[in-house]
């Protein structure tokens, strides 16, 4: 009997975790983020970024372009590897290729929005800043370490990087509206969270329904758990409708729309709107509060509809929907399974273990975070609920960031694939640097969380960068000199 209670407890932990991750505010961030990811893939021509990564691009342009390019190009892991190989062999070389490989997974819009909403904006921002900075650093170090190898790359044509495609003006407008949709739904400011009107849906027994839900999935508000609300049930039903209708309506939407397509799109709009209002169950009915969020989302969606129907080709919109649905199909099932599993596992881990291993911002704790990230492979986005679990079990935010930096960058699988492109030596040097830099990122961010002055940290960062730059230019000069002497003596 005890075992049974224990198992039921674990199951409820899984359901509770799933419920709080499918809660309204997470959907408001994830749904727009999927549509943005789809739009980045379908509507932005890759040449818009890759032309800055050609063989002749100066370093000042190619490194930042490689870092930022990840945002546009790396939404899907299946494009990272070919692009990485392409930049390395035919384009700007090892350095920018490594920068691209490092920064890409970290600034993927889905991971970023999800991290921000589920764990905290501070950690999401630290992740962007530090990974761009360190990505460029690692790229430069790798380029100089293997200067001679790099010069001997095959001298194939620059053709793949040419092309002057411009991103169309209406595409920018479309992205602004999509990002507006994301911001209106997630930003916690009075303008969006205030209620402006309310009405009551007369359905009796709503309070008892809520009590039943609380009994099925008990939750502890002090741990930040949310349980399942009546609103949550409506959202889960809508998600089921989207799942079924999108399967028939979006799987081959590039061949044309059908009634299922419109059902799916309608259900998606309804989900976002239901998630944006506030619902309070009473004995007499369901009280619905119209929030600024909902109005903002409504305006953004109408704007998207107008821009899409007026300025875009039908095929572009179809491709956008197809890409978005492809991301959802690829990621969402894994995410649901992962979140459920995390909820179950949380019941099995003793918080003391985590607190002893990574409860404080120490070198060892950050290293443990990184190593855990390397040896555990989690599908895209599942690293976020896992990080959140560690946080609630008492992990310090510093080691947490170290883990979040290392997990998507490095896994045994990605190390193997990388080594097929650039060879074993370079790969292991890269892995070593990523370990060092991720640990460092965790330490710096952890120190900031613990109250160290940001100016002091900035000063350290600048001194560190300066030492690195001087060291690198010295090594670079020596290598160039020795290469020159080698050439002279060969003549």
């Amino acid at each position: 009997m005890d075992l049974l209670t224990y198992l039921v407890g674990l199951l409820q932990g899984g359901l509770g975790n799933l419920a709080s991750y499918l809660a309204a505010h997470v959907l408001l961030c994830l749904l727009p983020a999927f549509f943005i990811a789809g739009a980045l893939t379908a509507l932005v021509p890759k040449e818009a970024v890759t032309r800055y990564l050609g063989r002749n691009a100066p370093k000042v342009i190619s490194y930042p372009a490689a870092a930022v390019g990840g945002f546009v190009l790396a939404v899907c892991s299946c494009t990272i590897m070919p692009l990485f190989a392409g930049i390395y062999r035919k384009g700007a070389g090892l350095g920018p290729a490594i920068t691209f490989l490092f920064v890409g997974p970290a600034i993927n819009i889905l991971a970023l929005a999800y991290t921000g909403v589920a764990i905290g904006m501070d950690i999401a921002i630290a992740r962007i800043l530090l990974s761009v900075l360190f990505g460029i650093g690692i790229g430069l170090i790798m380029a100089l370490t293997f200067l001679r190898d790099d010069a001997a790359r095959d001298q194939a044509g620059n053709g793949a990087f040419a092309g002057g495609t411009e991103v169309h003006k209406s595409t920018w407008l479309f992205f602004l509206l999509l990002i507006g949709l994301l911001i209106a739904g997630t930003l916690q400011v009075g303008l969006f969270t205030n209620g402006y009107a309310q009405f009551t849906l007369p359905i009796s027994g709503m309070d008892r329904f809520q009590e039943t839900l609380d009994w099925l999935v008990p939750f502890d508000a002090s741990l930040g758990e949310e349980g399942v609300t009546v609103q949550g049930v409506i959202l889960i039903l809508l998600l089921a409708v989207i799942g079924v209708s999108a399967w028939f309506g979006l799987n081959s939407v590039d061949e044309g729309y059908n009634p299922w397509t419109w059902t799916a799109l309608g259900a998606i709009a309804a989900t976002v709107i239901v998630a944006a209002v506030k619902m309070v169950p009473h004995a007499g009915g369901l009280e619905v509060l119209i929030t600024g969020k909902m109005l903002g989302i409504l305006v953004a969606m109408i704007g998207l509809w107008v821009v899409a129907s007026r300025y875009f080709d039908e095929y572009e919109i179809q491709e956008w929907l197809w890409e978005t649905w492809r991301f959802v199909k690829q990621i969402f099932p894994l995410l649901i399974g992962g979140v459920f599993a995390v909820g179950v596992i949380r019941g099995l881990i003793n918080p003391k273990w985590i607190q002893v291993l990574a409860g404080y911002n120490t070198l060892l704790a950050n290293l443990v975070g990184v190593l855990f990230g390397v040896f555990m492979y989690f599908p895209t986005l599942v690293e976020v609920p896992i990080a959140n679990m560690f946080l609630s079990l008492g992990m310090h935010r510093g080691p947490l960031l170290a883990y979040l930096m290392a997990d998507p960058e490095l896994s045994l699988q990605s190390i193997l694939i990388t080594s097929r492109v650039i060879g074993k030596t370079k790969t292991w040097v890269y892995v070593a640097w990523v370990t060092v830099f991720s640990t460092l990122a965790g330490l710096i961010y952890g120190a900031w969380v613990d109250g160290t002055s940001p100016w002091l940290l900035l000063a350290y960062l600048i001194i560190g960068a300066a030492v690195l730059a001087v060291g690198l230019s010295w090594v670079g000069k020596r290598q160039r000199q020795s290469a020159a002497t080698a050439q002279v003596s060969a003549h």
Partner: protein
Amino acid sequence: MEVKILGTGCPKCKRLEQLARQAAAEAGIQATFTKVTDVDQIMSYPILSTPGLVIDEKVKSSGRIPRKEEILGWMKEAQG
């Protein structure tokens, strides 16, 4: 005619192959289809991102899924 689909097996590559096969079947064009999944072989073509479509050793598109009509146009052009 020889049609090659370059791609490591992501959903886009499968979709591209499906469209290319449909295009050939609808126009009654005889073509052999090859899937190139090896990264080294893919990178021997001047493309940066998959999926890539190669007709008679000429790269026709990369990094996106072209429309069926586009594919059909290239096939007719290659047929002469």
